[in-house]
């Protein structure tokens, strides 16, 4: 019995995000003209998975009590790179995919090295590296263009057995291959410990530096997977500043909705995935209710503001006013 209480306390944020998503998705499909069909699910999944990858990338850094404001730019950079490399024969395509993933991981590793070994604040450091990554993306694609191996793209954005969206299957595969081993490894625990209390973790001899570095590197890798998927959906590469910024912003929104604490040490990438799906569905609700698309940015902004204000309810539990100042 008590075991369940602990499990519930740990997973409360994730479960809440799942609940929000299910409610939103039911409202969405119930009002969608086509209803709950494989097509609707596929489109929703394709849009949601893009944000889910970026949100997972953001989660890894947020868990260590950092923040990655360059995550949208890594996403753009890998998108532009993929539009050059992921073409040609199956062998060339494979090399291209591996290269894109490595570049993403390298970007994350650079962020990690600057933050951990250079001891700069994550906010400033990642704003600056974000400018660098955007510059490189712009060098690669001054104008939108390029192409991608369309067989692979169609396979990964289509449906398996005519029902299950392939993008969703890929997302689950990535969770199983990247997130679960990380969470269960010594370094994953170190990343959580560093986010929870860096001093205590240091005193207990936890390998905080290596744990945080791995978290930043894997974050870059996940953003690169997102960038690859963007290329598969659009068949092109484009270095659009506004789009990179929007993904950074939405990833933070998804992380907050997904119950990951921005102070670090709490939450999981699974929660962030549901947060991302919920955020996307909220944005799409406007379309099924036939509202002017012009109102979408405002609607998303208000939802975001309300979502982050929910954290203020914790204030009612504060018994000593000094706890305000964390």
């Amino acid at each position, binding site marked *: 019995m008590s075991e369940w209480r602990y499990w519930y306390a740990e997973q409360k944020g994730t479960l809440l995000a799942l609940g929000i998503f299910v409610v939103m998705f039911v409202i969405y499909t119930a009002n969608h003209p086509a209803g709950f069909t494989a097509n609707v699910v596929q489109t929703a999944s394709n849009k949601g998975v893009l944000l889910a990858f970026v949100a997972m990338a953001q989660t890894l850094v947020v868990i260590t009590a950092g923040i990655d404001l360059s995550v949208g730019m890594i996403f753009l950079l890998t998108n532009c790179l993929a539009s050059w490399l992921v073409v040609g024969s199956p062998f060339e395509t494979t090399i291209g995919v591996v290269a894109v993933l490595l570049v993403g991981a390298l970007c994350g590793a650079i962020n990690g090295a600057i933050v951990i070994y250079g001891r700069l604040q994550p906010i400033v450091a990642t704003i*600056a590296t974000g*400018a660098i990554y955007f510059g*490189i993306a712009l060098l690669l694609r001054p104008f939108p263009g390029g192409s991608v191996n369309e067989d692979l793209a169609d396979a990964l954005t289509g449906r398996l057995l005519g029902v299950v969206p392939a993008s969703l299957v890929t997302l689950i595969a990535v969770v199983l291959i990247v997130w679960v081993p990380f969470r269960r490894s010594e370094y994953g625990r170190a990343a959580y410990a560093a986010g929870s209390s860096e001093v205590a973790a240091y005193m207990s001899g936890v390998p905080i530096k290596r744990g945080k570095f791995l978290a930043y590197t894997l974050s870059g890798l996940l953003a690169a997977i997102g960038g690859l998927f963007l290329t598969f959906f659009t068949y092109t590469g484009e270095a659009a500043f506004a789009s990179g910024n929007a993904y950074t912003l939405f990833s933070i929104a998804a992380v907050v909705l997904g119950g990951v604490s921005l102070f670090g040490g709490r939450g999981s990438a699974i929660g962030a995935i549901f947060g991302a799906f919920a955020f996307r569905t909220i944005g799409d609700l406007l379309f099924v209710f036939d509202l002017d698309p012009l109102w979408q*940015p*405002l609607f998303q902004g208000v939802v*975001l503001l309300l979502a*982050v204000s929910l954290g203020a309810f914790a204030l009612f539990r504060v018994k000593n006013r000094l706890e*305000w100042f964390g």
Partner: protein
Amino acid sequence: MSDATTTDRQEARMPKFLRRLDPAVATSFACIVALLVFGSLYSSSFLSPEYLLQQLKVASFLGVISTGMMLVILLGQIDLSVPWTVTTGAMMASAAAAMGPAGVFLAIPFGIVCGMTIGLVNGIGVAYLRIPSMIVTLATNAVAQGLMVAYTGGFSPQDSASGAMRYLATGAFIPGVPNSVIVWAIVGGATVFVLTRTTFGRSVYAIGNRERAAYLSGVNTRRIVMTAFIAAGGLAAFGGVLLAGYASKAAQSMGDAYLLPSIAAVVLGGTSILGGRGSYLGTIAGVILITLLQSILSVMQMPEAGRQIIYGVVIVVMLLLYGRSPASR
């Protein structure tokens, strides 16, 4: 031990004003001189008074915006709502200017009040709801963007800036000295006075060092934090008003180019991103440094991509030189 005494003696030999100078501020000014020397090698017109005044004029827009950013950073917070606060200020002022004579008269105050409203929401979120500033300002930025997109229909508005806005940004009240530079000087002078000579300024530094201690010593920390955010919003919007006057109209996403530079200017000027430490002189140095860097890169006809890369590299390198936090031991 002996090392400490030799440095003490060396410092004793230096003039008083040099001893008091923050190394970060000194580095920034040294970089400005180096950039000017480098620029003059590239083109001889670099050291001409006209060029330098033109640079100061361009710097003054960033200077006004960075002043607000500095207030917030001194508290140990950050304001990521700058891009759309700038745009909101510009668009609302231009919109007011299109509403007849009363609107023309009220254009500038109206733009600033709109920015202060955004700052108020930020301040309530940070000070009273205790939401991390990075998050709440990102959210208000999104809301401000949504409001402006809904208002303009996604296009750049047709309203043009009022005469007063244009005069403030491009005119010259004292012949030879652009008005915008005078505006920056007034804003800067007021900020220096507030930061060094008033209780409010002292409290800002105290809260940046340790909010808990400031609260226990009787400072109404929540009101001070909220006021600082309101001031930051107002200053960002005022920067937008000046920019609209400079370009004679507002444009979508005109503020995007000011978020990174304003944070970079403050941090390069030696203000600690953790709060509680920093001088306005440093911010002035940071603003001029960034403006000169941008100008030299565009004179060299560097494409946008190269500019972004150099920009990011310069900020990282300079911060690695003197912006590092202490090691955990």
